[in-house]
Structure formats: structure tokens, C-alpha cells
């Protein structure tokens, strides 16, 4: 096998030095009846070219090159090539968690920069080194709110990404931490009256998403006011990180849980992405996940280390803030590079382009269907209600190598024939016009 750096004589020599007659001796601790007496049923050993051919075939059977109008928690943005050029360096790609800081300063400084940028963007004081993704991060945020407040329930907006809500339910189901959901208004924003009804003295936190699942930007300050008045924390979930280029950061929140996939991470059929959690300084010891901190070496030179690990499972075991261990470090590094490339001006300019595309597209779609949720600001997603079932529309679009908006029936049956469309800088006017035309057929 070409990955294995041993010659047959190496193996013989090693066995001899160990004092074994055969390799089987080393496997003798496995009870004989459990030893596998046959080859595994996996594909035969392949040449590299065969491996590539196999995956190339798969890739070609996977909508390569289609125009994409799907968003809904996974966004199609241009990925500058320097990201892969840099994270492909073996020193980033094939390093472990930076437990030995003297030979891991590269990873550590990059993550420290990530944490800083996330703070700058979200308006929080501290951010962690990453969570698995936005959905698990939101579940961890609820659990953190419980730890911080000592209260034991949560109220979550129905406009939070439906799969995030499913994940929150899965995580919390055996923790005695009931989640109630509250509704949205006709303008797409959360229904404050409904929230006020559902929030109780046992509510650890209120969670909203902004821009929410319909693309509507919430009035975070107002929700924060209400939550805080009731002694609850406000958790803001952000599924489209790029919105922060032009959308006011949720500074009124106590915890922000963000999915950073938009920052240079390939759509990749859903993963790997990178969640991240940010919060106020005072809550940092209740935050899950790794943290990189600044320190000095024995000569007084600046350096970085993993810190506050007494929150974590390898120290605290069943009392840890979370069971998370492996996180999404390389993806966070991708995001760091992306944020560095676009930076202070570029993220704004790019977000503006996204907005402009969506405004144009919504304007065009308005001629063929109804744009729901008017009257509140939106980022780059919008809901189009049509006469026809959006699945049928999408089937038609597929013939034109176009992937249409996400039909909302499954999660919001009350909206009827509605679909959530997304336009990014990658959707050309030409693509938009063609899609609008197909919708209207």
C-alpha cells in the first residue's frame, strides 16, 4: 500500500526485534472467535487515478455548474483562491489541536485573530475558537444560558432556521429544558406580543435569528429589551455571517451563535462548516469550546495558548460546559483568511452587492408572484409566493441548469406555495432574469 512507509524486510526485522514470530501474535489479545477471517467488503485497492475517476463521476452527477438560488442556511459566495492555497499547507492542514504551543503558534495566532474578528463583527467581547456549526452552536447557546441564569427553559422564534430548531430539540430533550416557540408577524419579524406571552420567570433565554430564516432583519434591540426585562438572556443566531457587512451587529445580545460558512467555506453539500459562539466577557467561563489566549514565554515574548480549559471535558469531564473536543479549526482558519481578504471595506462592499442583487431579483419576481414579508428590512433572501407549487417550478428550472428557491411547505405550511430565494454576488442579472422568466411560465 503506497501510503505505508515500510518494506517487507522492515516488517520482518521489527517482528524479530519485538520477539514475535508473526504479526498475528500481536493480535492474539483479540479472542480468536472474533478475529476476522476474510477480506473486508470494501472496494478493491485502487490507483490514485481510479479514485479520482470515481469521484469525478460522482461530482458530475451532482449538479456541477448549476446556477444556485438556494440559501436557507448555506450560502453560495465566491471563494478567493488564496484560502485553499494557504490552508492546504501541510503545517495548517496536518497539525493537531495546538496542545503544544511552542510548536503550534501558527494555528494559535490564526485562531486568536479569528476570535478577534468575530468580536469585531458581532460586537461581543469574546468569541471561542469554533463550534461544529450554527445549529449545534445554537443548542450549546441555550445550554449556556441555562448555566448562566440558573433558569431552565427557553423561548425560540419560529423564524430561527428550522433545522437549528430541530437540533436544539435533540440536544435538550433529556435535560429538562423545554423549548417554546414564538411566532412571526406579517412583516417577517418576530411577534413581540407572542414572545411576551411565552416568556416566563423560568426562561433562561430568548433566541432569535437575524437575518431570520425569511431573510428579514430583526429589531434586536427591542427583543433584547423585552428579554432583559424578564431576566432572560438574549441569544442571537446568525446563519448568514456576511450580513454583518452592512447589518448592525447584535450588541444588545448576551450570546451570539454564528455560522461562518459564508466566509470562504465551500457549500460542500452541507459541511464541514464552522459555528462560533461569542458573548459578554462576564459569561466567558460558561462558554463552551476552546479558547486561545495571549500570554508570554519565559523570556517575556508574546505567544498564544489554549486557555480556560477548566471549562472543558478533558479537565471537567461530566461537569464540563460541553462535550465538544474536536472542533472546526481549519474551517475557522478559512474564515479568518476570508475576513482578512475582504476586511473592513470589502465585507461591506460585498454585502452591498448581495443586497443589490436581492433587491433587483425581488423586484423582478414581484412581477410574477407575491413577495411576502414586506415592511421590514431584508438582506439577500426573500420569500416568493406563487400560484404554482414551487417544486414544479424548480423541476422546470432544473432543465435550465438552475436550482430554484427553497419550498417552504415542509416547515411553514401556512405560507402555501412559497419559496425562499437567495441572491448573492454570484447570481448574475442574466441568471436572475432567466429564473424569473421560468417562474412566470
Amino acid at each position, binding site marked *: 500500500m503506497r501510503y505505508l512507509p515500510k518494506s517487507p524486510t522492515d516488517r520482518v526485522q521489527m517482528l524479530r526485534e519485538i520477539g514475535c514470530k508473526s504479526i498475528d501474535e500481536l493480535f492474539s489479545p483479540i479472542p480468536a472467535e472474533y478475529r476476522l477471517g476474510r477480506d473486508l467488503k470494501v472496494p478493491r485497492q485502487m490507483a490514485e487515478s481510479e479514485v479520482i475517476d470515481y469521484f469525478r463521476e460522482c461530482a458530475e452527477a451532482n449538479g456541477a455548474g448549476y446556477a444556485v438560488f438556494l440559501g436557507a442556511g448555506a450560502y453560495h459566495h465566491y471563494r478567493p483562491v488564496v484560502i485553499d492555497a494557504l490552508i492546504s499547507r501541510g503545517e495548517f492542514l496536518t497539525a493537531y489541536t495546538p496542545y503544544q504551543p511552542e510548536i503550534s503558534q501558527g494555528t494559535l495566532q490564526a485562531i486568536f485573530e479569528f476570535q478577534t474578528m468575530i*468580536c469585531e463583527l458581532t460586537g461581543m467581547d469574546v468569541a471561542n475558537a469554533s463550534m461544529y456549526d450554527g445549529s449545534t452552536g445554537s443548542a450549546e447557546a441555550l445550554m449556556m444560558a441555562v448555566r448562566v441564569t440558573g433558569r431552565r427553559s427557553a423561548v425560540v422564534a419560529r423564524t430561527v432556521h428550522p433545522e437549528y430548531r430541530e437540533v436544539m430539540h435533540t440536544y435538550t430533550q433529556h435535560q429538562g429544558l423545554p423549548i417554546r416557540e414564538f411566532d412571526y408577524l406579517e412583516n417577517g419579524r418576530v411577534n413581540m406580543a407572542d414572545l411576551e406571552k411565552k416568556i416566563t420567570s423560568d426562561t433562561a433565554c430568548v433566541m432569535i435569528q437575524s437575518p431570520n430564516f425569511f431573510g428579514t432583519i430583526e429589531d434586536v434591540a427591542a427583543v433584547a429589551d423585552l428579554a432583559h426585562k424578564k431576566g432572560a438572556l438574549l441569544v442571537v443566531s446568525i446563519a448568514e455571517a456576511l450580513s454583518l457587512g452592512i447589518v448592525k451587529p447584535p450588541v444588545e445580545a448576551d450570546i451570539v451563535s454564528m455560522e461562518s460558512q459564508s466566509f470562504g467555506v465551500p457549500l460542500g*453539500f452541507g459541511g464541514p462548516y464552522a459555528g462560533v459562539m461569542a458573548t459578554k466577557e462576564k459569561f466567558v467561563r460558561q462558554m463552551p469550546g476552546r479558547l486561545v489566549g495571549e500570554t508570554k514565554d519565559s523570556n517575556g515574548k508574546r505567544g498564544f495558548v489554549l486557555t480556560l480549559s477548566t471549562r472543558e471535558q478533558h479537565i471537567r469531564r461530566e461537569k464540563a460546559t460541553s462535550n465538544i473536543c474536536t472542533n472546526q479549526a481549519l474551517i475557522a482558519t478559512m474564515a479568518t483568511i476570508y475576513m482578512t481578504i475582504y476586511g473592513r471595506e470589502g465585507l461591506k462592499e460585498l454585502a*452591498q452587492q448581495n443586497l443589490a442583487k436581492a433587491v433587483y431579483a425581488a423586484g423582478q419576481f414581484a412581477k410574477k408572484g407575491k413577495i411576502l414579508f414586506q415592511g421590514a428590512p431584508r438582506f439577500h433572501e426573500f420569500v416568493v409566493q406563487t400560484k404554482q407549487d414551487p417544486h414544479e417550478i424548480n423541476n422546470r428550472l432544473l432543465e435550465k441548469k438552475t436550482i430554484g428557491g427553497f419550498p417552504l411547505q415542509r416547515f411553514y405550511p401556512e405560507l402555501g406555495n412559497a419559496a425562499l430565494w437567495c441572491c448573492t454576488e454570484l447570481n448574475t442579472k442574466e441568471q436572475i432574469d432567466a429564473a424569473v422568466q421560468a417562474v412566470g411560465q
Partner: protein
Amino acid sequence: MSDGYIKKATRHVNQNEDLIFERSSPGKKGYRLPPLDVPEVDYTKALGESARPDLGNMPEVSEMEIIRHFTRLSTWNYAIDLGMYPLGSCTMKYNARVNEVVARLQGLAEAHPWQPERVSQGALRIMKTLSDCLLDITGMDAITLQPAAGAHGEMTGILLIHACLNSQGNPRKKILIPDSAHGTNPATAAICGYAVENLKSNARGMVDIAALAAQMNEDVAGLMLTNPNTLGIFEQEIAKIAGILHQKGGLLYMDGANMNALVGKTRPGDFGVDVMHLNLHKTFSTPHGGGGPGSGPVACKKALEPFLPKPTVVEKPDGTLGFDYNRPQSVGRVRMFYGNFGMHVRALAYIMANGPDGLRQTTEDAVLNANYIRRKLDGVYDLPYKSASMHEVVFSDDLQAKKGVKTGDIAKRLIDYGFHPYTVSFPLVVHGALMIEPTESESLEELDLFIDAMKSIAREVEEDPELVKTAPHTTRVSRLDETAAARKPVLRWKPAPTK
């Protein structure tokens, strides 16, 4: 400093680099957008009160500086690509470059998770093929690829146990966990609402069967067993262990972190495991990337299948593949979409490059390497448990502690010798543990250099313990003050106060 003994490394000039924020200045740009092909929109008008005034201290730098910044940073890291990385329990093996290539093929890298199944057959085929491979490797009946890492898989597995027992009327209260277990095990049990009960190892470093029998009762939902365990020892009484569990209606969970010792040689499904996770980022060579991403598929026996997270990948009547969301007994979803698909691609590429013969040889070499190290270092370092080693070996710093040198010091000194240290102070059952997992990816030459370095350090401990206690001496930063970092945490850069 006795650099003369160091064969594997030399000091070399290395670039310094500030934080990216310290390089930033207004007006530098690392990007350029194409001209907008639709009318411009004034975002301050469009968003009104929700509009953001500016982006604070986000950096402004050019592409050239970005390349240099991250290239320089990268040179401060040790990596598998540079040398042996014998972190016990971490399986730091070779990450083949072809895996990176196939994961970046346009049709896979740019696929939206919610694009219609009709145009997702390639991705579905990959998930299905990988699932089938992993099922045969583990000897299990059903699988989910959704969990994002090992700990996430553990949670999924324990939720399955909960749901299964619950469907029988009682989810029970406790999970048994051996004292040698990884920290994620108890942390996971807690998230799933279980109380954790510790199970002591016996003198041979294995589960104490009598103790298990004594502790097992109708309150116990299951046992989370790592096999080989974190001492690198195969639980030879595995049949009895499973029997005791099953007899009292409990289920056996296996933490599959150490599957690199077993693939192609034995199958957990055959020796009584009910549910387990795999770490694709260990056994199946997806790169660690400085801490992640990983992927933690969970495989289970038939009885647990109804409870698997949704959706599952199924073959449809028309022969195409699709997702099944209609799973009323499912524990729910543990992550949005389908898991870390990019890692599935890489793991399958690894399996295909190996084939059945390659996978078996890989396991054999991994175990051979660990035993070679054991044989060569036994006596130089104290070996607390004499049971046979599989893919890793755990020494203690007993002999060196007499000179005041701890496992952590020896680890730091290894850095000077050009190696990444082993895992320090884990598992907890060994005081001052040196946990060494070479994996199959090390050549005899590299192993000999490692053994040589370890012997040389042992000598240094005798002759000049201070040298070891103040190591490393060859790195761009010396020992970092972790206590200070935790005492007054500085977790982000801030601009120097101006005035």
C-alpha cells in the same frame, strides 16, 4: 545544551510576524469585486436603523501581505507532513493529498445541501458507499454520518440508547464509564441526561469484570467502553462484558477512537457492541487541520436503527438514492444537513486507496509500530501495565520523576529533538502518563530516531535534569506561561489605547 545528540532537527532562521491587525492600514485592499450588473442600492436607506455604520477594527491588507502572513504563521507549526506526531489517542496518520483533490471537485464542493435529490445523486452515492464500507468494517447493521466529531457521535449513540430503552419503557438513569475513558465520554453522558458512574480498571488495565457485574443493574442504561482502551489494551473479556450488560438489559457503547488497531482484523459488531462511533479524522485519515473538522459516524445494531437521526440515506424504488425524513422514532437531528460531507468524501477516498488488503496492512503496521516502540523503551521508561499493547503504548514518568522531571517536561524536550510530543498525562489511570501512538505512517527510520531521542532524554534526565525541565530550547518561543493566560484572559486583540 547537548545539541550533539539531536539527529533529527536543526535550528534555522524563521520569519517573525505580527497580528494581522497590526499590519492593517486604511486603504489597503486584498479584494476586488466585479462590477455590479444590477442597480446599486443604498444600504443605509434599505436597512434604515439596522444599517451598520462601519466594521471597526477589521483588517485592511493586500493579498501579498495575506499570503505572507499566513505562510509565516504556518512555519511556526509542527505537522504530520513534517514528522512523526505520536499523540496517543489521536491517530495522527498520513493525510493523502488525493483526498483533498477529490473533496474540491466542483460538483461536490459547490453542491448546496438542499439542492434537489435528482441533482444530488453523486453526493448520495458517496454517502451510501461510505456507509456500506463502514458497516462492513464495524460489523454493524445501520449507520448515520451526521455527527460532526467523536464527541458528537458519542452523544448520538447515547441518545440512541436512551431512545431504545425508552421505547422499552424505561430510559434508565446511569451510564457506566471506565476510569481510563476520555473526557468526552462522561461529558456526553451528562448532556444526554444520564448520571455517570465510574468503573475501575483492574491491575491488567482492563475492565474489572467483578466490579462491572457488581455495578450493573436495572438503573444502568449502558457502558461506554473504548476498545482497545486508552491504555492501548484490547479488552479481552469483551464477551463477558457485553454479556453482563445485555443480561441486565443494558447496551454496550463503544468509543471507536481506537479503531486503527482493529480495522480488518476484528469487528465490534461481532464482539457484542450495540452502538459505536468512528472518528473519520483518526482512523480514516481526514486531516486534523489544527483541531478540526472531524466526522463521527455512528453505527448500530438493527434494534437501534429506528432511532437514528434523520434523515437517513435510502435507496428508492426507482433505484435512485434519496433522504428519508419520515422516521417517527428518530432521536431527531444532531446537526443541520447531513454532517461533514467533505470528510465523508475524504474517508471514502482513503478506503478506496487502501482496499481490503491495504486496510488490513495498515492496522498491522500500526500495531507493529507501537509494539516496536514498547519493546525498545520498556525499562528506559516505566511501563505501568504489562498487558499486550495494540496500536499505542502508555509509559509513566515514574523513573524520571525521581529527578523531578515530569512527563510534560520530557514532552517539551522531545520538541528539541524534532518531534511532536506524545499525549501528556492521559489516561488519568496512569500517573504521569506518556501515551504514544505512532500509527502506521512511521517508517522504521523515523521510529528509531524517536526511540533514540527518548533514550537520549532519559539520559539527560540523569545527567542534567534542568535541561529537560526548561525545554524546549530550540523553538521561536520558549515555554509559555499558561497560568498567566488563564488568570487574566486576553482572548482578543484590541487597538492600543490612543491619546
